[in-house]
């Protein structure tokens, strides 16, 4: 049996993955997606770009006159390159846990929603109101009303799909 893992096969497989992911957001089945969904597609393929890096990619993808849509013909080569070059590598999970621990100055083992909100909406690449609301709904323990970040990290890092 021929060696299934030559470069060509890898590229083809990668491109089929990209195609599938793209199709999920191609609502009109005309091989275009809304530019606002590009970030979701790229991330769902396993990449961890920062917001700034994402903006750069989108700028590259949009035509000279941005229509608000990205065509598959343009997306495919760009995304293939990203995946094959392994750009936007994942952040190691223990680093994520450390990040929470660092914010938990009193070493309580949990964070108050208010304090986490402050950090995430004011520093780094700030969350929008919608993002912080969604995150809190997933992260806040409903009984104790705090964020048990260890559990939250486990939830986020679990690759159940």
């Amino acid at each position: 049996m021929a060696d299934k893992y030559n470069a060509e096969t890898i590229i083809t497989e990668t491109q089929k993955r990209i195609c599938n992911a793209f199709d999920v957001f191609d609502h009109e089945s005309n091989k275009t997606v809304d530019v606002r969904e590009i970030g979701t597609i790229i991330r769902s393929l396993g990449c961890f770009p920062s917001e700034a890096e994402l903006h750069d990619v989108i700028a590259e993808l949009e035509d000279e006159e941005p229509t608000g849509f990205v065509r598959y013909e343009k997306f495919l080569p760009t995304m293939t390159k990203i995946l094959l070059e392994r750009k936007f590598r994942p952040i190691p999970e223990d680093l994520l846990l450390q990040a929470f621990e660092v914010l938990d100055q009193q070493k309580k083992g949990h964070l108050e929603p208010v304090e986490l909100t402050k950090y995430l909406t004011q520093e780094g690449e700030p969350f929008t109101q919608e993002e912080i609301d969604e995150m809190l709904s997933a992260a806040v323990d409903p009984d104790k009303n705090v964020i048990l970040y260890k559990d939250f990290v486990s939830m986020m890092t679990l690759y159940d799909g």
Partner: protein
Amino acid sequence: MTKVISMKAAVIIQRWYRQYAARMEMRRRYTWNIFQSMEYADLQDQIKLYNFLGYLMDNFTPSSSERNLISHIFRENEVCRDAEWERYFNYTKIDVPDIYSGPRLTFPLDMVQAADLVEAFRNKQQLHSRYVLQLLLETWKLLRGLPNINRVSTCHSKEITVCGDLHGQLEDLLLIFYKNGMPSMEKPYVFNGDYVDRGKDSIEILLILFAFLLVYPGDVYLNRGNHEDHIINLRYGFTKEVLGKYKLHGKRILKLLQKIFSWLPLVTVIDHRVLIVHGGISDTTELALIARVDRHKYVSAMKPPKKKTPSRSSLHAASEHYNEMITCKNRTGSVTFPKPFAARDSFQRRSLQDFSRTVARTVEEELEVRRRQAQFSMSSFSQSHHILGSAPSCESESDSSEVFDTSDDDWKQILDLLWSDPMSQDGCVPNEVRGGGCYWGPDVTEDFLNRHNLQLIIRSHECKQDGYEFCHNRKVLTLFSASNYYEIGSNRGAFVRLGPDLVPYFVQYQATSMIRGLSFPQIVKRTEHTALKVLREQLFVHKSDLLSAFQELDKENTGLICLSDWASAIERVLHLDLPWRVLQPQLVSSTTDGMLDYHGWFRDLALKNHSSEHIEQSMLETLYKHRSTLETIFRIVDTDNSGLISFEDFRQTLKLLSAYLKMEISDEVINELVISTDTNNDGSIDIDEFMEAFRLVDKSRLERGKSPFKFKQEYQRLPQEEETSQTAASTGPQISQGPPSQTAGSLGTHTENCSSSQTEDLCDISVVVPPQ
């Protein structure tokens, strides 16, 4: 901690969270795609049914036993001789026992009674059949006076509320009333069809809407949807619901509803500017024509009226006419079947008249017909007309004299209104997915709006993830009011308010009694879990074809294929437009060196499906694929709606279906199928029990009135479920009763999440019967 460090920490958390959110969004999205493609597959099932019935019409050469079955299928044994109409719908003889604690209606209804009715249904009470019949009769009388086109105005600064499909989901209607207020003179409503089927409280929704219609006839407007159709109801659960809730008078109620559905107006126009219609339009839609049709003659999409025959002599014509009257009198329905589509017209115009010529009548029947024909002279239409017309409720018979005036055009106009869907390309093509109506493009919208001086079309008919969606340059709005339609968490519902400026104001919602206490990711996971179960079922059902496809790719018979081949094979076999490579991690649990042991994979699928081992695999698969056709035929054959069919009819049905499918089915296999059901010894088979034992139907869903073709749910411990989850799940039947708590956080800017009444019961829990 320095600012730099906290910033770095924030960046890491943000970056990771955004990646996580993207993954969830992808899963939410493809889950949605799965449901949509399953619905597509379900619609294909409907087409299969039509094709099967068409095949029966065309192809069978009846031996005596088969002929009986087939004429059995096509005849509705309804009592409907003229003098019996009044007796048939007479509710006054129905006693209401003292013990009955539900609402006791007095007519004319008033607002207080309507509100009480809503409250009673919220408390899970059932309206007594006497009042049901009375309410339906009053409704029918009112509807008969309404025009085909409702005309509404937003004068006096009234805002008009428009709602889309409700599909028997009472909770959503209650939510709408809670958020928006109940209908009144200050609060007019337009309801855009599809009140029934699939959900479990279809009759309650109808009764509420009709009650408000009676109380506020100038402020409540009802459009007809494609599910306001008794043959569709046979398949999608409404018929079953009514018969289950009203064991004694259910058939009467259904009969009356049949008439009521045909009398529902077709469209509503607001301020001469906004058109509200259930399905949509086509390039031939013309409101002036719509205004003139006799809408009540179009009882069902499956029953086009008889064709006009202008060339015949009056004598012949008269006898034709008389045949028609006889047919109506004996209530032999005409079940008609669309041609498998090659041609432009999807619904072929066949009537039972065509069919009955092929089926030889018994000698006695022949004599009877000729005797009747001899009795009446050709010129005494009016006489016979009079006889038929004398029964006060017998409208359709007296209208049969107008059967000559019905045209194909009228028929098409109505089908288009109730069944069409918008598409993004220009043009207008027949809607082959649904089998009726068409797909219409933005150019058709533009042209239509210009011709009629309108600015917006509001339609429903299609489920939208956010409850509503614009298309065609915001000139077409799809509005869907049944939240969680495919599954808990699958979609929001929405309604819209229009003031005199006709700028739409949307309110979205999601009935949350089931997702109380669940966070958004948990909801996504649950919904995805169900979708994947359904998908695995589909894979299992296609095992033989898939196996062949895999073996083709595994030429050296190693039992292994690579994942890429796995995906390609599935794509080819299943014809479902789904992102298989994205779904792969969920469907394939383990591989060695990137190669999949496909026999092992099928074993895993089988385990998850608890399939019956005894019956031959491909037989099971094929019948499973066609289970909805099978069940619908059973129910049609079960003409007295007893839930039982005779062993002989059962056998014949299976044999006919298998001949059509070119599939071998031996008597031994049929016997096995029967044995696995708990049959009474009198040679009859309980349809529900059969379908259950055949592992096709979730019985508790049936009891709750849901459609047979729906997604099975099992409450198993969901993978990676958090321990802190309030709805702790475990295998087996489970009661889920979280304390009333805050609902999940905002799912978007417009969402107003509100929970309905806390009296919610034990919802979608299924009891899985282990294999016998």
